[in-house]
């Protein structure tokens, strides 16, 4: 009887399984053909509306789907035509006339024209709601203010108006000239979206949701640009973005029919996926892995550096107000040895606060080559021998300019001690108050920090660091601020560049508010099957030229 009962149970289960195996309808469509490029990203995108983003992982898919008025020449930081074929700056710098490319369409089939450009610029300027404005980081940085500042936004807007003179001519008027223009128009955040799609999917709707924000259907599901790839889907549970080739693209069509961007947060897992052949490209591999990956036949392409690591000095400490003490610190650090021992291949000692890829870089700044004797002598002269310095450095983070914060700190600490300083190390987690302490509270005497440039203008580097009084550096020097303002306000491109070259000379010789340490080039790794990848110093590669054999 037991056997019979058992047989009945097994048969019932089998019947149940068979019936269940037809309970839902498959919703699959036809397979795409034409090849797929798979990218292993370190983080998931926040959303797909360019103006509300400021991080590289969000910009990566955005850059494939959208375009800006001005682009960078592949592999460089030099400007070239994008959606605008040419641009003219008026003599006073307050008017930029963009001559737009003809025959371009957005992914929804609507026309790209001057009206669309003005729509986008007006949209940003007129954005309502403190929530939305607070998330437009690059807009606030470049354009400084809105039509009506809400929340804590207080800047006077740089933007005045945009006029569509004809179908292919957009004239942008500014309230004041800023040195960031026209280079800032290359920023991915200022990509041009389809006005129809923006309106249809309520793109401006950004609302608070608990301790975060909710974005619109446009930002999450219907991004619509003019780029070589179109948005197909974003699987929020597996964090996989799927883009498909835009067959109506105005330029050369993307070589792959599909591009998949997978989020693989763990660095070791990302590397293993590359080795297993499940992804074709990964970004920012750990420098210690470069050689191993090259030996296994992967292409490790090292970009030209577009970043700076600096040792910040806080002049809130009265002893550090004396430039001889700051110079002593500069001479005490053996930066060449630090670069050789702690930083990846291709890293360079920084002579000033921006790399040589940026216009305004000066070859003849005052250098501070390692000289321990000079450091000691300056310190003695200033009466600061034995000075104790609180030295902050971050933990739980690596940055392209700072791959090993602890290692870099240790090297500098040893050098400072050798020169006669006493060092009190203070380590704080990057996401656990480090930036609050050093940038807002100014608790440190020395700290490690850096910057990756956003666009090719010296103001994006030295203007950002030293353009105004900040708790981070603890000084108020009207001479330096006005020199930087004057350089920024110079409308003639050659004079603009010359002015910043002089600024760099003066910063290094007369002011020295911090010590430039190094420029570290980040790498991107692809499998040997990948061809046609052109790297960008600004890490804003396009993948439409890439083939996977």
């Amino acid at each position, binding site marked *: 009887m037991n056997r019979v009962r058992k047989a009945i149970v097994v048969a019932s289960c089998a019947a149940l*399984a068979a019936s*269940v*195996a*037809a*309970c*839902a309808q*498959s*919703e*699959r469509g036809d*397979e795409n053909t034409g090849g*797929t490029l798979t990218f292993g990203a370190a983080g998931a995108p*926040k*959303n797909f509306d360019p103006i509300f983003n*400021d*991080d590289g992982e969000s910009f990566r898919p955005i850059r494939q789907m959208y375009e800006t008025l001005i682009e960078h020449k592949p592999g460089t930081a030099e400007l070239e035509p994008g959606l605008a074929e040419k641009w003219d700056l008026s003599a006073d710098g307050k008017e930029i006339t963009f001559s737009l490319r003809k025959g371009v369409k957005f992914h929804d089939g609507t026309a790209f024209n001057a009206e669309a450009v003005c729509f986008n610029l007006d949209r940003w300027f007129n954005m309502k709601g*403190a*929530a939305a*404005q*607070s*998330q437009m*980081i*690059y807009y*606030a*940085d470049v354009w400084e203010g809105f039509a009506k500042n809400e*929340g*804590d936004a207080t800047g006077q807007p740089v933007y005045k108006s945009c006029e569509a003179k004809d179908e292919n001519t957009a004239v942008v008027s500014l309230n004041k000239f800023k040195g960031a223009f026209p280079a800032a128009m290359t920023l991915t955040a200022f990509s041009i979206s389809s006005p129809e799609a923006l309106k249809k999917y309520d793109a401006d709707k950004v609302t*608070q*949701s*608990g*301790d*975060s*924000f909710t974005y619109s259907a446009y930002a999450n599901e219907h991004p619509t640009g003019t780029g070589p790839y179109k948005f197909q889907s974003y699987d*929020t*549970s*597996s*964090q996989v973005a*799927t883009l498909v080739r835009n067959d109506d693209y105005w330029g050369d069509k993307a070589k792959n029919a599909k591009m998949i961007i997978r989020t*693989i*947060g*763990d660095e*070791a*897992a990302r590397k*293993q*996926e590359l*080795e*297993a052949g*499940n992804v074709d490209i990964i970004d920012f591999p750990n420098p210690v892995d470069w050689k191993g990956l090259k030996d296994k036949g992967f292409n490790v392409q090292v970009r030209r550096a577009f970043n700076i690591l600096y040792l910040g000095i806080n002049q809130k400490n009265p002893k550090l107000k004396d430039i001889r003490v700051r110079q002593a610190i500069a001479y005490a650090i053996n930066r060449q040895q630090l670069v050789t021992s702690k930083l990846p291949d291709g890293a360079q000692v920084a002579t000033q606060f921006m790399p040589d890829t940026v216009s305004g870089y000066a070859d003849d700044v005052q250098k501070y080559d390692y000289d321990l004797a000079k450091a000691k002598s300056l310190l003695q002269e200033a009466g600061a021998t034995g000075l104790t310095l609180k030295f902050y450095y971050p933990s*739980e983070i690596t940055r392209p300019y700072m791959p090993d914060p602890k290692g870099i700190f240790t090297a500098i600490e040893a050098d400072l001690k050798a020169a006669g300083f006493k060092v009190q190390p203070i380590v*704080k*987690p990057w*996401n*656990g*108050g480090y*930036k*609050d*302490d050093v*940038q*807002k509270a100014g608790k440190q005497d020395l700290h490690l920090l850096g910057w*990756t440039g956003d666009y090719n203008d010296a103001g994006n580097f030295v203007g950002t660091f030293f353009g105004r009084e900040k*708790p981070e550096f603890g000084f108020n020097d009207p001479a330096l601020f006005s020199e930087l303002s004057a350089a920024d306000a110079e409308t003639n491109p050659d004079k603009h560049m010359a002015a910043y070259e002089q600024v760099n000379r003066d910063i290094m010789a007369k002011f020295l508010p911090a010590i430039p340490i190094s420029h570290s080039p980040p790498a991107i790794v692809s499998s040997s099957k990948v061809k046609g990848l052109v790297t960008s110093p600004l890490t804003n590669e396009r993948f439409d030229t890439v083939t996977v054999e």
Partner: protein
Amino acid sequence: MLRFIVRRLIGVIPTLFVLSFLLFGWLRLLPGGPAGALLGDKATPESIASVNKVLGLDQPIPVQYVKFLGRMLTGDFGNSLSKSRPVVDELADAIPATVELALAALIFAVGLGIPLGYLAARRKGGLFDNMTIIGTLVGVAVPVFFLGYLLKKYIAVDLGWFETSGRVTAGLDETKVTGFKVLDAILTREWDVLFDALSHLVLPAIVLGTIPLAVIVRITRASVLDVMNEDYVRTAEAKGLYAKTVRKRHILRNALLPVSTTIGLQTGLLLAGAVLTEKVFVWNGLGSLLAEGIERRDYPRLQAMILVIAFVYVIVNLLVDISYAIIDPRVRVR
């Protein structure tokens, strides 16, 4: 029995309130707030202050807590900072992933553990028994992440026998019904997806199930040895019952009591082990969500997850108590 269950469930509510209050306060007191996490690298003190004001994070903590409580009682845990998605949606996506993995790990651990433990006890002192004991010691001692990377490297990457990460191959055309990949593939008869999902599931399930397997083997072995020496077993054998009947009805059934308690406890520990396993295998479940939430100081996500985990733990323990009543009639009487 029903009254018992209802009483236990009601008792959970004050526990969760106290936990939510302590958690909220502790997270808010940690240095580095959500605004920095929201704004990323380009955050400046001014932009952080602006976001804090918009989100009300500059208000006193008790005021913030009352607002949070009001939202929580309507099921609104807010959006995560990392992905700007409702935390509830994130959990809804992650729970099937973790349950599927935990279930597979449990099936592996229980399916292999009970027979191995039983056989080891039957062959006590022999080669099989000794090898089993050594195996369990190794299983408990090897760190989960180490085992994970090892199996990934040699079995998945080098040999290519199984997939390296994720739940299915990226870009695979699949239909979502429940969120359980294996079940969904069966329901929709997408057999290629079923095969793909299983090939992704095997290694993480083995890694996650290794420690529970070792523990279940040891407990089963010890329990069976105890029961085998009981008087009632000797009586049953003396009465002339078939050996198979004695093994099944008298030895195994009684030996399973402590094993079932162990399984219950291991289920709770599976969640802890899942954090590392999911990170190694890029398995987007609760563990990955929790690890990322800690790294990025994603307070809304952490708050919701810890409350959910506490609730699940209580429910699992309740189920274990109920299973006792089912297995042992004497518990029902009591």
